[in-house]
């Protein structure tokens, strides 16, 4: 009995069903991973500077997950960069959240020259960003469309950090790419007032450096191990930035601190993904069984013709693994296409789902395992 007789056992319908089911589960798992990863990295996408590819960018912040509550002392950052060779510029930004016309929006405040340098924005309508206009606001192109406002309109902006409204005039609509096109830009001083900060405090400091050596030197000054910067270190370091002492208790309360700030380390994220993939893959036990039951007539004929049950099961296991890998590859390919087309909306920002292949290598493991267990549990000899 050769391979040809074993191949004849498997009905195309059974293969199609197995492929379809595995594909659907894998697609769900990749979507789930994409969603979790996108939400997890949402805040990082807000603070990161993507336009300056040729520069070394060091961002100083004091948040576990949300930059909207970050407070950085301008003096402490200036002291840290003082005398450091290769510092081209330090840009101070206030990034916070505001409420306008039934929507929560991201409000960003920084100097116009710095904004120009970081984003190379262009004005679609209205005037250039003016640091000396304290009643002016500039809207990202997408946000202006969503709010249905244009240049000259007045908007009432509410801050969660102050109790009085900010009545601002839309002075321009700008195009600066993501994430700025979904944000409201105001002068730095007004932004500090909106966030409830003093003139010597900001949300983040973006230090532009000319070389990797300067970057590493600055990292050393902040006592950051650039090769391994965990969220915990970021949290603890941030406490130093705002000038408070870090006590041993801070380290001991690390877990509760992360959870109280709704922060999740990458390891926890992976644990959640693995758990979900195991739970969702449990049902594939049925697929393993169906691979036998749907081919039972052919299996029994082959058995009558002398093909041993063990050999049939090993062959079906091989088919299951191949189906699993093929479905995974297809699901991953389709997910990537879907991710480029579909996006979710968070705080008026369009968030594209994303997936890192190194994060999803484990997905086929529980799925294939449960399929194989299901296959192994069917008693062919009883039939």
């Amino acid at each position, binding site marked *: 009995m050769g391979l040809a007789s074993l191949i004849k056992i498997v009905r195309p319908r059974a293969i199609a*069903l197995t492929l*379809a*089911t595995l594909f*659907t*589960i894998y*697609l*769900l798992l990749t*979507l*789930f991973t994409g*969603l979790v990863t996108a*939400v997890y990295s949402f805040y990082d996408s807000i603070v990161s500077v993507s336009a300056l590819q040729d520069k070394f960018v060091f961002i100083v912040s004091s948040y576990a997950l949300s930059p909207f509550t970050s407070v950085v002392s301008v003096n402490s950052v200036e002291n840290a960069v003082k005398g450091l060779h290769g510092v081209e510029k330090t840009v101070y930004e206030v990034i916070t*959240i*505001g*409420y306008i016309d*039934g*929507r*929560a929006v991201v409000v960003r405040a920084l100097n116009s020259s710095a904004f120009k340098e970081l984003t190379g924005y262009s004005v679609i309508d209205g005037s250039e960003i*003016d640091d*000396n*206009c*304290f*009643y*002016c606001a500039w809207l990202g192109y997408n946000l202006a469309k969503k709010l249905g406002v244009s240049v000259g309109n*007045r908007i*009432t902006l*509410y*801050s*969660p*950090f*102050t*109790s*009085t*409204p*900010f*009545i601002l*005039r839309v002075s321009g609509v700008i195009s600066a790419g993501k994430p700025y096109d979904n944000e409201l830009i105001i002068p730095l*001083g*007004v932004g500090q*007032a*909106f966030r*409830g900060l003093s*003139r010597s405090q900001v949300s983040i400091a973006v230090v532009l450096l000319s070389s990797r050596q300067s970057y590493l030197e600055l990292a050393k000054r902040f006592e950051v191990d650039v090769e391994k910067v965990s969220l915990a270190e970021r949290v603890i370091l941030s406490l130093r930035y705002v000038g408070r002492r870090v006590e041993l208790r801070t380290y001991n309360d690390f*877990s*509760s601190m992360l959870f109280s700030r709704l922060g999740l380390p990458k390891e926890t994220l992976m644990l959640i993904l693995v758990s*979900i993939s195991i*739970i*969702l893959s*449990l*049902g*594939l*036990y*049925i*697929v393993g*069984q*169906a691979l036998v*039951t749907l081919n039972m007539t052919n299996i029994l004929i082959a058995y009558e013709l002398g093909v041993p049950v063990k050999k049939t099961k090993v062959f079906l296991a091989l088919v299951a693994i191949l189906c699993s890998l093929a479905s995974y590859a297809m699901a991953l390919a389709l997910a990537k296409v879907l991710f480029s087309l579909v996006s*979710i*909306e*968070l*705080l008026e920002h369009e968030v594209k789902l994303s997936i890192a292949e190194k994060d999803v290598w484990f997905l086929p493991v529980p799925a294939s395992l449960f399929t194989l267990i299901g296959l192994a549990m069917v008693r062919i000899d009883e039939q």
Partner: protein
Amino acid sequence: MEVKNLGILKTLFIVFARGKQISVLVLSISIPIALVTSIALALSASQQQVQLLTDIALQNASVVVSGNGFEVGVVDAVIVIGDQRVGIQIHVVRDFNAYANLINMRIVKSTKPVDKAVFSVGMEIANRFKAGVNSIVLICVNGSCFKSTITAIHRGEGYADYIVVTNSTAFLSYSKTMCFSKKEGSVAVTGILNSLNRDISLLVQLLALISIAAYTPILYLSINRVLNDYGDVIEVFKSVGATSRVICTYFLLLFVVLSMIFVLYGIALGVVVVHIGIWLLRFFGIAMLFKPTTVSELAIVPSALYAILCAIVTAVSVKRLYGGF
């Protein structure tokens, strides 16, 4: 005839129970429902947190722009001192002290006493221009410029430091009247929390529905697997005169009841899993502020949809395997 039909139902149930097929339905019905329930409960805990924060925000009052209330004329102007020009907002009010009280603004320097003609500049503006009381500034609005003397410098919360407040009628014709009123709670906090909650809820609902949809092929395979065991019994029923329609109807009835039972089992399983998770977190010293107590409609709606899906899959499978209807 009714006893006979009930006999069919009873036999179908006995075959199911003896066929050791419970695990198949647990995997294909209860597991996805348990997952959806866990997601729903997690969301319920997050909503409780939102509610608490909203309640806390209610303890503070905030000033809002409303249809009626304290009338404020808002003027966008340019203030010029020496060679410096800055765009500022002037709030023209009839009762200066009442407005100062409304927006928690206090005078830090003034020409005494604060008389009828007050021209109070925010602290940040004054600092920027290094201007003090009695300084003369030029205010330009829509091409017309007025000389004004700073009679006071104020400090306040938020935007107050960046505005000029006056009771001078000179600017009234350039102003747009808006009404400010005090409201319980922080409009921004409540609004932002509700907006975020809405975004997250939509996301989670989408996830719950995707989970249910992804399990449809498994549901189809498992119901087929269970129905396959009925071949001999169907032959017996047909030989004693039962029509395909009757057999199929009772199949459908049995599986609808079974799917509802397994859906309920899934919901219970989800609740238990979440509470075990909370217990484990507490064991490791992480206290959860909120315990999800109620199974929201987020779990109930997909569960009901899944039960309906079970009925449809059963009807399709029975028709394919044994004919009928």
